């Protein structure tokens, strides 16, 4: 028996040619974590797939991208057109198809979907009682059927599924890899974009707690503060986030260089650290206290 296909033998197709009408600007170019969304999605997929194909609208402007580029023949015909032109351009028999507005792609789930294709023509997740055709795997063998659909004006991909060997991936199976189904989260409006950004920040930040002692506690009437910081944050970031949250500390305990003379910091009850360059880790308990233990 042939071994299951892997992304290394497959193509990834990314559809960017949608209208983005509700978003009001091209979704592919939305900034996400400091870069256009399409760049981010491509980079993730290129790590595992043999090739990537971006399918754009006929006259759509795109930055130069390290990928094959295909174009819809007619603009804004919907996903079936995109899937069709992507599959047509791909050189591999198996293609994972996604839209470009999915910032939370889960590579493990994608590899799992690709591996399920062996005796099937389509592998499509079924999440919250809906097929997810733009996070699915297709064989190029379905190209003739898609062409027929386009000609008939059947613009919804799910019409395909009854006609071919389709493996529907149930919710429980997805949950094992992507418990919250974030793979299927896409963004159609500015509000959804904002929410996705927040979610991303939350999932990619570390959380530390700061316990205040002595004068710091008296000044702020606060004993415990929780701070969310970027991965790789240092004490300098802890101090500045703390001063922002508790302004009474600014100038008294914390200044622009870190802790003011007379104060020190202990991490997890173990190490005394004053250097603002010291890295902190998620879950760290940081104590701000007097540098003088005499009494």
């Amino acid at each position, binding site marked *: 028996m042939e071994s299951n296909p892997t992304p290394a033998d497959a193509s990834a197709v990314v559809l960017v040619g949608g209208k983005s009408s509700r978003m009001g600007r091209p979704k592919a170019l939305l900034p996400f974590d400091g870069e256009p969304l399409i760049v981010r999605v491509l980079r993730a997929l290129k790590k595992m797939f043999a090739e990537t194909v971006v399918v754009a609208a006929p006259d759509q402007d795109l930055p130069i991208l390290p990928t094959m580029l295909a174009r819809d023949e007619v603009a804004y015909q919907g996903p079936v057109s995109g899937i069709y032109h992507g599959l047509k351009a791909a050189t591999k028999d198996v293609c994972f198809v996604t839209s470009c507005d999915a910032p939370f792609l889960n590579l493990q789930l994608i590899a799992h979907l690709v591996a399920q294709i062996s005796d099937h023509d389509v592998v499509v997740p079924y999440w919250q009682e809906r097929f997810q055709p733009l996070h699915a795997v297709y064989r190029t063998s379905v190209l003739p059927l898609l062409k027929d659909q386009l000609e008939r004006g059947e613009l919804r991909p799910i019409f395909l599924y009854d006609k071919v060997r389709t493996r529907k991936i149930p919710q429980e199976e997805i949950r094992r890899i992507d418990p919250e189904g974030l793979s299927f989260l896409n963004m159609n409006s500015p509000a959804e974009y904002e929410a996705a950004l927040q979610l991303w920040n939350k999932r990619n930040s570390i959380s530390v707690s700061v316990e205040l002692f*002595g*004068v710091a506690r008296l000044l702020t009437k606060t004993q415990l503060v929780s701070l969310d910081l970027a991965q790789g944050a240092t004490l300098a970031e802890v101090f500045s986030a703390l001063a922002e949250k508790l302004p009474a500390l600014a100038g*008294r305990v914390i200044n622009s260089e870190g802790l003011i003379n*007379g104060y020190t910091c202990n991490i997890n009850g173990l190490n*005394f*650290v004053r250097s603002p360059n010291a890295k902190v880790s998620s879950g760290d308990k940081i104590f701000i206290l007097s540098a003088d233990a*005499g009494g």
Partner: protein
Amino acid sequence: MYGFYGRLLHLDLTTGESVWREIEEVRLRAFLGGIGLGSSLLYEYAATGVDPFSLANPLIFASAPLVGTGLTTTAKYAVVTKSPLTGFIADSLSSSYFALELKRIGVDALIITGRAATMTYVFINNHHVEIRSADHLRGKSPLDTESMIRAELQSPSVRVAAIGKAGETLVRFATISNEGRHAGRGGVGAVMGAKNLKAIALSGNCPTEVADANGIEKIAGVLRERSLSSLTDKYREMGTVANLAVFNRLGTLPTRNFQQSTFDNAEALTGESLTENNFSRKHGCAACTIRCERLFKALDGAEQRMEYETLFALGPLCGIRDPGAVLQAAQLCDLYGLDSISTGGTLAWAMECGEKGFLPEAQKLGLRFGEPEGVFAAIAAIAERRGIGALLAEGSRRAAVEVGGDSMYWAMHVKGLELPGYEPRSLKTMALGLAVSPRGACHNRSGAYEADFSGEVDRFSTDSKRGSLVAESENFAATLDSLIVCKFLRKCFSDFYQEAAEVLSKVTGWDYTGAELKRAGERIHTAKKLFNVREGWQPEDDWLPQRLLGETLPTGVGAGVGLSPDELRQMIQSYYRARGWDDHGYIPESRLAELNLPQVAMHRKCAVIRQ
């Protein structure tokens, strides 16, 4: 002579005779004042093997060159004698107006020997010495004694240091107290009691002359400014009670007689909570800009001083969590003139004895962890040497010897002095500092905990660096204690020895250098050790209580951490090496010579100036 008078007053209470003697400049330059001068005089004035309670044991009050100069935090004096608690040197400090007055009577030291026939007090007005009856002051608290004497002498300028009931009954950890402050550790109050001396009242108008008044004024301004900077925030804004919450969180708060190093539900006892709920007012010593003292409202509405050591010893160490109860227990210690650390340490020992069935009388008195009533009853019993109080008045070491069995295992002392509030197992440099200190378990004659709290070392483990860290810390403390400068100013110097030598030079007119001052610190510390060796110190005296070496910490961030006898032994060896002592901790002659100890008149009698 600037900064000093070059003389001492020796008062023999048996004969009532007063003699002024010369202190040679060479001795002052070598030992400075305070603890240093006091130690050198103790070596000379105490006969080898003297009984601390005997007539011959000198009770020495030593002033210092910086006292009276107006420099912040320098209104301090030292009391030095042979300790009835340890049998070694007792060197205690106290401060404020009595310290200034001691300087104003025109001597660098006051030595008291002998014993008055009845309870007396001494009034020294410049060169006039008067011995007066104190029969009416028997049993009075130090504060009451002070105000009664000031009233009867009808002089607002008179300052008084006194003992309470505990000093009169020779409780071995009785204090000498002035203005609510105490020369607290080592039982100096009992030595005073043994001389039938209830109080010393001083009034003088001798000026402190300095060599470079303008220079001193300038330095005074700089130090004042630094003393008001963020470096002293803790002391100025909250006082030392700030330690409790931090120590609890760091697993260094001795609890229930060192069975644990964290205290559950300590919240109400933290400095933060006390400040919020019980604060009454701030107070400071004379000539101090830091003003670290905090007075809190006790249950009866009265104001009570509280600092970390008292709070720890009468609180977590005894399992007491109610701040009202701790304040009340502290009131009682002040009332009777008791060292609150040794009181708490001895009571915690007795509580554990009761718990383990060794001391039924302790249980009967209500001495149980967490129960304030037993603490109140026991403090009074100790001061009056009543019932089990007579045993507890001897301190934990002697009491444990008396009770026998395993009770020595949980007697938490070094050389007989009960441990302060720093858990040695989670502060390993401090563990060494406590083990080797000539005074016994003391956090003031060595600030070795600073290395542990600074990140300079791993506080949970040991290594051979600790010896030199402890030695340096002791030398530093000896220098501060002899100039005298309060330790709460210590972080305000950028190059301590250099800057302090400059101050000393401007006061005395000497050309003192930083290196010479550093050497003086080492010499002073060595002189204390030398006294102990003469009084029978043995290598096994530099050691820690068995509990600390036999049990790991059960709670907190230090859970599972212990201290093995081998680790302690190795640290002690590293300390002896750093000091240039032999493997057994004795001081080689060559080392004494290097420090000029034989040459600096420690063994030479001071010449009589006038009688």
